[in-house]
């Protein structure tokens, strides 16, 4: 049986499956189990006490959780949309210049090399009220007389984190969309122009539909790593001031590791896992559909 050619692909995939099972599948099941227990790190025996839906009931009755959950959804939605818009704008700009495109693309890759924790550190520094470059520049230009407390004020801190997130990930959109633009066939555009389409019409009816698969690839890739924002927030504000920048991920870390309430944290973790999967699945489906559409058009 093992020697038959039918077994070959399974044998080739076996090591991958074993690793994923050990590091993701089993732990995710452990996570599911422990979310039904009052597991506390200080009392190991509690891992084996089953309490049913109690953690989830408490969770869904907890305002802090809903704030963090809602803030995370808003944060992700706003960030992804702005990244798409800025990335598209940047790609269109680069597509319009003919010289130095390679150099520009290299510079655009700059933020992609940064570890999220570094992006967080960098913007913690940029937005620091006493030594940060932003306040320094505003002072030097005479625009402000008192330092702006970027990371101390709740609303400003949310803005700062959003800015850091957008800085980190706009490039991914820009680079992917630029490669789409470079692959764009010129004939339909020329034809449309001859037929009297204006640039806006050309963009809406030719360029944009062609770019859709690229947009979905970018969205799929981003939805896979969107939780990297945790690293950034951890170092920039760690959820503060007074929980005003708390995202689901920072809340999980706080409940699980600082308060040792592992059972509760795993329940939250499960909510975040299911949300992420739903999110990725949505874009992946869109990607498959647009791929099929592209295949049909060829």
């Amino acid at each position: 049986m093992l020697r038959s050619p039918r077994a070959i692909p399974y044998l080739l995939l076996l090591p991958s499956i074993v690793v994923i099972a050990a590091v993701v599948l089993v732990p995710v099941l452990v996570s599911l189990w422990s979310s039904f227990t009052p597991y506390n790190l200080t009392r190991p025996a509690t891992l084996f006490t089953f309490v049913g839906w109690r953690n989830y009931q408490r969770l869904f009755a907890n305002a802090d959780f809903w704030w963090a959950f809602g803030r995370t959804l808003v944060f992700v939605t706003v960030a992804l949309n702005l990244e798409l818009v800025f990335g598209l704008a940047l790609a269109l700009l680069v597509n319009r210049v003919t010289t130095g495109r390679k150099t520009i693309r290299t510079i655009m890759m700059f933020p992609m090399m940064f570890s999220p924790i570094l992006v967080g550190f960098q913007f913690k520094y940029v937005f620091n009220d006493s030594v940060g470059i932003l306040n320094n520049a505003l002072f030097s230009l005479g625009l402000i007389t008192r330092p702006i407390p970027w990371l101390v004020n709740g609303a400003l801190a949310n803005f700062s984190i959003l800015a850091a997130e957008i800085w980190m990930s706009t490039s991914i959109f820009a680079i992917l969309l630029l490669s789409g633009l470079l692959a764009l066939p010129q004939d339909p555009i020329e034809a449309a122009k001859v037929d009297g389409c204006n640039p806006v019409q050309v963009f809406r009816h030719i360029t944009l539909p062609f770019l859709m698969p690229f947009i979905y690839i970018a969205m799929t890739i981003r939805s896979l790593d969107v939780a990297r924002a945790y690293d950034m927030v951890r170092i920039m504000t760690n959820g503060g001031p007074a929980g005003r920048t708390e995202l689901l991920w920072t809340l999980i870390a706080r409940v699980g590791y600082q308060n040792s309430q592992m059972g509760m944290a795993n329940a939250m973790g499960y909510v975040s896992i299911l949300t992420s999967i739903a999110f990725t699945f949505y874009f992946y489906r869109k990607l498959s559909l647009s791929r099929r559409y592209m295949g049909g058009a060829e």
Partner: protein
Amino acid sequence: MSARMIEQPWQRWAIRFALFVALAILCIPGLWVVLTAFRPNVEIMARPPVWIPQHPTLDNFRRIFGLLPAEQQGLPVADYFRNSLVISVTSTIIAILVGMMGGYAFARFRFRGKKAMFLGFMLSRTVPGIALSLPLFIVWSRLGLIDTKIGMIVIYLAINIPFTIWLTDGFFRQIPVDLSDAAQIDGCTRWQAFWKIEFPLARSGLASAAIFAFLTSWNEYALAAQITRTTNAKTMPVGLMDFTAQFTVDWAGMSAMAVLIIIPALILTFIVQKHLIAGLTFGGVKG
């Protein structure tokens, strides 16, 4: 939208200006950190700010490596660097070997459950790091893997394998099946055909997949922060947090460490940039 469109001079200048501003925003924060790494503390705190470093120094680097005897004791940055290197390199090599096998299986074979399995691998990547760290912390502490390099290597393997499969699947698909078939007709076994024909053709793609895997491990924080504790296994990104206390931040030391983290990433990304785009889009669009 094409470059062939006739442009007014003012339009050309407007585009250049907009691009310049965008690229400046992308560069300045990082540049500022690099400059800070080479500044004495007095200059960092100076008011009015000192823009161009007046007294460039390597003292910040000496300090974080504990080479300045008189001042504070150094942090174990050398240990962190070694841990990061060992963990990232080992997990990358294994991930490429294992992932390549998987990618080849997806590209060249039809088998039952193929689609579901591929989706399963991709979905395994959607689990947020911090959510995964909770059960891993529970399981790893029962297995005695907390704060070990092996423990981290295995975790990064699981993170890198799905992406490697995705990339190599794309690369192998681009290589015509006929080449391998021809070699097999000429008397090669499938195994020989793979190593003589398909592997050399996919080599540059594999190299870029390796660099991706290395960078993912090198930059990862959420899992390493919970699973590692001491100089046994703590990595650079985790070590970076050593510099922040509740109310004080050692900007100079942190910037120096940031430069140490970014340099390998910079070099590797520069090498791989050509494949970066091709890898991401080909793997995705031509599926």
